[in-house]
């Protein structure tokens, strides 16, 4: 059986040109080989400049790889064929309000995705948009709303609706949970877990919150300076991290905080 997604020696270089001399190559991602099964969740972690967003962009097709190929179900993804890619791989961005068009209604923005990817009539498009809005926990009434009329959580739901509306196989999310409030964030995580169960979507997300990664991911990929540091299932990464960086990134902040707070207050009470 073929894998859902396969990256073969994918790398990304930028050429930094200074004047008319041949430019300097800057490496954003060194050749990377990676596979992902259907319905699995992959979390990409790393520090700034580690190439984690580059991987997300390469998979989503926002950037073209310098070398290597990406295969979806054993089929080569052409970097220029957006129609093929946007049907199967969708992306969610960090700032939900800024990734929505402020001038058009939610309904029209969602049907634009259908217009490009399907041959539905406008009646069918409308029905499908209504159905998708319900799937992500919004009301059909929201069809006529403009993005600014919604709260940040609802905006993020619209972004998720735009991603799942064409029944994709992979959703790529770049820091999609960072700017949300805790209570809304928990709701969105629940929504994504529900959708993943219903539609067996694979989910690739970039995050630096160890809490979310531990909860949601099946596999974790740790990056540093464009190189793969460690890759494995969440279980093994948590129990037997091989690298210092993995341990550092996966340690849970609050746990330390609470223990530190407890110990420090104990010491003060003793004094």
């Amino acid at each position, binding site marked *: 059986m073929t894998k859902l997604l396969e990256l073969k020696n994918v790398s990304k270089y930028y050429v930094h040109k200074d004047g008319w001399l041949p430019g300097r190559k800057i490496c954003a991602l060194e050749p990377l080989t990676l596979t992902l099964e259907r319905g699995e969740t992959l979390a990409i972690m790393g520090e700034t400049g580690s190439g984690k967003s580059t991987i997300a962009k390469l998979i989503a097709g926002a950037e073209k790889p310098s070398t290597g190929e990406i295969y979806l179900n054993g089929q080569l993804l052409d970097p220029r064929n957006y129609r093929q890619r946007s049907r199967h791989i969708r992306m969610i961005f960090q700032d939900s309000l800024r990734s929505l068009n402020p001038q058009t209604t939610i309904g029209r923005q969602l049907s634009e995705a259908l217009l490009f990817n399907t041959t539905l009539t406008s009646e069918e498009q409308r029905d499908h948009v209504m159905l998708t809005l319900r799937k992500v926990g919004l009301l059909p009434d929201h069809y006529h709303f403009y993005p600014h009329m919604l709260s940040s959580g609802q905006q993020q739901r619209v972004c998720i609706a735009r991603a799942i509306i064409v029944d994709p196989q992979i959703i790529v999310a770049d820091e999609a949970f960072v700017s949300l409030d805790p209570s809304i964030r928990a709701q969105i995580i629940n929504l994504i877990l529900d959708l993943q169960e219903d539609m067996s979507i694979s989910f690739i997300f970039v995050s630096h919150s*160890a809490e979310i990664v531990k909860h949601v991911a099946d596999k974790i990929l740790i990056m540093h300076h464009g190189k793969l540091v460690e890759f494995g299932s969440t279980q093994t990464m948590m129990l037997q991290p091989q690298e210092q960086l993995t341990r550092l990134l996966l340690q849970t902040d609050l746990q330390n905080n609470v223990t530190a707070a407890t110990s420090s207050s104990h010491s003060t009470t003793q004094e």
Partner: protein
Amino acid sequence: MSILDIRNLTIELETSAGVVKVVDKLSLQIAEGEIHTLVGESGSGKSLLAKAILGFINPRWRITADRLWWRHYDLLALNPAQRRLVTGRDMAMIFQNPGSYLDPNSKVGEQLRELIPAGELKGLYLRRKADRQTRAERLLHRVGIKEAKSIMDSYPYELSEGLAQKVSIAMAIAHNPKLLIADEPTTAMEPNTRAQIYRLLAKLSASQSMSILMITQDLTSIIPESQRISLVYCGQLMEAGPTNTVLTKPAHPYTEAMLSMSLFGQTAAPKTRLPTLTGAIPTLQHLPIGCRLGPRCPYARQACVNTPRLSKVKQQEYACHFPIIEVASDD
């Protein structure tokens, strides 16, 4: 002895939909050298509170308080010039996106030198100039920047966000303030950088007995050394108390919910659904009456349409009709 004493601070905004109480009877005390964490989701009025303390006040806001005292000054009774003198001498603030609060047009060094208090410099022109330079360098050393020369010679866009935040902390402590207000200084920073900033703030607070009011959005970003914590929801104080008591034995349903929503790594099995508060944070125009958590609270009953009063058990304060802990046995 608290140096900042706020009792029943109310901030009202005039909007097109009428007057809205954005901050409703909030009380807060900060002792000298204490790190106080203020946790609130968006729309909780936490940034407004910071602005009210510092006096960045829009004339359209109506600010009333039983007490808004800074040391022995009644901040509400001072005229703007006096108030500016007091806050300018004793307080400083750092912000969320440090890069965007630095002047993009001038080098970091120029911005730092500008901030050295002129009254502390001695001698004639050249001597003063050299003195400024060494003091600016010393400031950068104090916030843990080793290559001070090269940082001072660079523009803000050239700095990483961690470095930019350190520079803005250096600028904030240039005149040795007694109170530093940090408004979500580490949001969207990676854990490593965040830990560095926390260690730096804790060290500054300990070595110079500087109080820090740390404003954050969730419970995962708390300075480990923080002594007290206050949770605010929609402008109402939910719970306040010593950090470890509040985090280990929460009295208020909101604290409990916030804990389970940010601490799920330990409590929830992977891939299970997380416990959440239903619904969304209410908008300013549609604030519920009584306890503002009411419509989202799992324990809400009829009594919750009246605003609960602040109860106190030992050092832990909470505003709830139906607290989680056993109150009677503790008294």
